[in-house]
């Protein structure tokens, strides 16, 4: 019988939650192993190509549930490889939210003030930069000008993008070919590797069991590098500490599947999922009106026709990110670019007399695609998502060889959530239809239900054991030595892009995890300097 492999700290997932933990624990002296379900791509592996099998489908997952579809990263670097690198901090009212439970959802120890030092750390590492108006793309500029025309403010969004390297190609979702986007492949992960952390791609963790000495055994499958539907083997590793950071769409099924071996999970595992209240609206811009009313003109004489040009979201209106407003009436409105395919199918033809999301009237608006402007709304939802029984492996039944899968998450939006969407939709419409600037329609929910690129809260922190799965140190209640540091730990929707908040919470959780590791006999200390950023995304080491 082969001896089972052992490590000090086993981390599941290599996105923000996993990478930040990997760095600090490895730098502190622990033996760290990271199991990542997706492939390891970097630099020139990132294709400008929609062909099935290109990086666009390799590193990106679209999991359709019942009423909620989740879009997320599936690769070394996780969400940071596919994200749009908008990195604002959560407004302070977020930490006071009551949501559906009638009392504060966040742990008492966390507020914007107490999280700010952790935000500072992540911001220094990535780094987060502030854009000026010369960095703002046409789409962002148009949104800003339209907001201004309606008497609203608009902010260039803080981002993790090197403006000098960025070509404004708008292929961010397929990974950044030019290493302009600050993914984890350029900071925490290479720094963790320098300290001996081992990152294993195409290893999908299925469940955990207990060892006799109070540690954990992690059971994984090997995934085929081309066809993710195929499992090519399996294995186990034993660890003293396990950190789950598979993402809010994937951490709960691992824990649910582990109930047979670990015993009952806290009630909040796989419940309270939030889609960050997300909605998209597509505006079909009237080029003539934009020129006349807003006075916009490009060097080529066009007013706009620049949907394809840019780098994701660059400008947001935060006028309704306002603590004076009641809960469920606060939201941000951010200009965004979504590539064709995912970014077109749900858009609806304004004023359609027949079907609005397919057919001849939909085809007509595709002809105006260059004049589309997409507005992304982040509202306050009610944490109404619930995970059903986990699938046999992974977090979903894979349909396509890559990208497309069917998952067990169900989401039935409450009147609070629906009202938030309606208020935000109406505001976008009011701003963009003023003086004939555009025709606006929200994306349909008739095809895949609601959708989110920022899944949150499905294994959340809190002070109340009845409504949170983790304590405020991110330890899984009733299962000492298991920590969760991904987006599932964030207690609720935050009305802005959550990557920086997920990362700051992970940074904040590290001292407690180090302490727990020491108590379990791991020779590790806390206090390593912040990792240095490198200019080239780190490639998979040669075997």
């Amino acid at each position: 019988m082969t001896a089972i492999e052992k490590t000090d700290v086993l981390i599941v997932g290599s996105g923000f939650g996993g990478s930040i933990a990997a760095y600090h624990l490895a730098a502190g002296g622990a033996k760290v192993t990271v199991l990542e379900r997706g492939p390891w791509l970097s630099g020139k592996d990132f294709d400008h190509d929609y062909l099935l099998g290109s990086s666009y489908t390799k590193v990106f997952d679209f999991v359709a549930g019942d009423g909620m579809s989740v879009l997320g990263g599936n690769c070394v670097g996780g969400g940071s490889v596919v994200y749009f690198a908008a990195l604002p901090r959560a407004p302070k009212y977020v930490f006071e939210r009551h949501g559906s439970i009638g009392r504060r959802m966040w742990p008492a120890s966390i507020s914007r003030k107490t999280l700010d030092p952790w935000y500072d750390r992540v911001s220094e590492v990535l780094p987060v930069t502030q854009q000026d108006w010369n960095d703002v793309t046409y789409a962002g500029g148009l949104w800003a000008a339209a907001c201004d025309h309606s008497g609203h403010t608009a902010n260039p969004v803080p981002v993790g993008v090197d403006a000098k390297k960025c070509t404004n190609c708008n292929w961010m979702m397929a990974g950044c070919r030019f290493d302009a986007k600050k993914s984890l492949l350029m900071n925490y992960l290479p720094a963790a590797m320098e300290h001996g952390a081992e990152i294993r791609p195409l290893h999908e963790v299925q469940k955990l069991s207990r060892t006799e000495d109070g540690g954990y055994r992690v059971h994984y499958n090997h995934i085929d590098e081309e066809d993710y539907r195929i499992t090519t083997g399996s294995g186990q590793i034993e660890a003293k500490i396990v950190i789950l950071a598979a993402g809010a769409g994937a951490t709960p099924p691992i824990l649910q599947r582990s109930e047979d071996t670990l015993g009952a999970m806290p009630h909040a595992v796989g419940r309270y999922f939030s889609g960050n209240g997300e909605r998209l609206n597509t505006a079909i811009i009237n080029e003539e009106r934009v020129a006349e009313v807003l006075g916009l003109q490009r060097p080529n004489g066009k007013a706009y026709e620049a949907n394809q040009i840019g780098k994701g979201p660059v400008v947001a209106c935060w006028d309704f990110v306002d603590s004076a407003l009641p809960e469920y009436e606060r939201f941000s409105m951010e200009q965004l670019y979504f590539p064709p395919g995912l970014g077109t199918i749900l858009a609806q033809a304004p004023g359609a007399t027949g079907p609005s999301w397919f057919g001849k009237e939909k085809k007509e608006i595709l002809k105006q695609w260059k004049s589309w402007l997409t507005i992304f709304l982040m509202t306050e939802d009610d944490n109404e998502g619930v995970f059903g029984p986990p699938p046999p492996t992974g977090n979903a039944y894979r349909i396509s060889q890559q990208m497309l899968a069917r998952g067990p998450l169900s989401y039935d939006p409450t009147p609070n959530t629906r009202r938030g969407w309606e208020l935000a939709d109406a505001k976008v419409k009011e701003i963009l239809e003023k003086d004939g600037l555009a025709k606006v329609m929200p994306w349909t929910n008739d095809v895949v239900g609601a959708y989110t690129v920022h899944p949150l809260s499905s294994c959340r922190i809190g002070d109340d054991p009845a409504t949170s799965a983790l304590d405020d140190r991110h330890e899984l209640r009733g299962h000492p030595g298991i920590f969760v540091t991904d987006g599932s730990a964030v207690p609720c929707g935050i009305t802005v892009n959550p990557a920086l908040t997920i990362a700051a919470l992970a940074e904040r959780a590290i001292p407690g995890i180090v302490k727990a590791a020491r108590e379990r006999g791991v020779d590790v200390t806390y206090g390593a300097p912040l990792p240095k950023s490198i200019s080239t995304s780190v490639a998979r080491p040669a075997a």
Partner: protein
Amino acid sequence: MTLEAFADTIVPGAKRFPTDHAIAGVCDDPGAVEAGAMELLGDPATGVTAGLVPLSGMLNQRAADYAERVGLTLDPELPAFVALDYDHRAALVLELTAWGNPERDGWVLLTMFSNMAYDSAAHRHTAEAIAEGHPGLLAMGFAEPEADGLWRFADFSYGRELAKRHPNTTESGSPE
């Protein structure tokens, strides 16, 4: 022919030849079929390929049921879905993809891939598809890449302040 008619309902096109029954002919330029919908659906990477024959049969069965329900007489020489005109095809697709229809997943997948054939040419290298005049990307005005097959946009910004920042913006550029 049946699946072509389905794809043509999602992104309609012009008839390829006078007796082209699959394409309803409600548009005067190419649609999903000419963009390569059958090629994409036939790619095993999609995961729908094995289900195409059963889906095709089910679609004609649903079309026959629909015709009977609304009192249509269909051309017996054609598969039932193909025999429907565009408006009836569209009405049926709305029913098939509606919430509550236990079969909707399969129809939604067909819809998604029919769309993707047209608007992102997921069965082709994007640069090649554009070079060869892929009808969907062409109609959308998708820009051509540079000579190395990569996209870059040197002209990207109005380059001036277009709105005032929110007064409660913190030093880090975030909301308070």
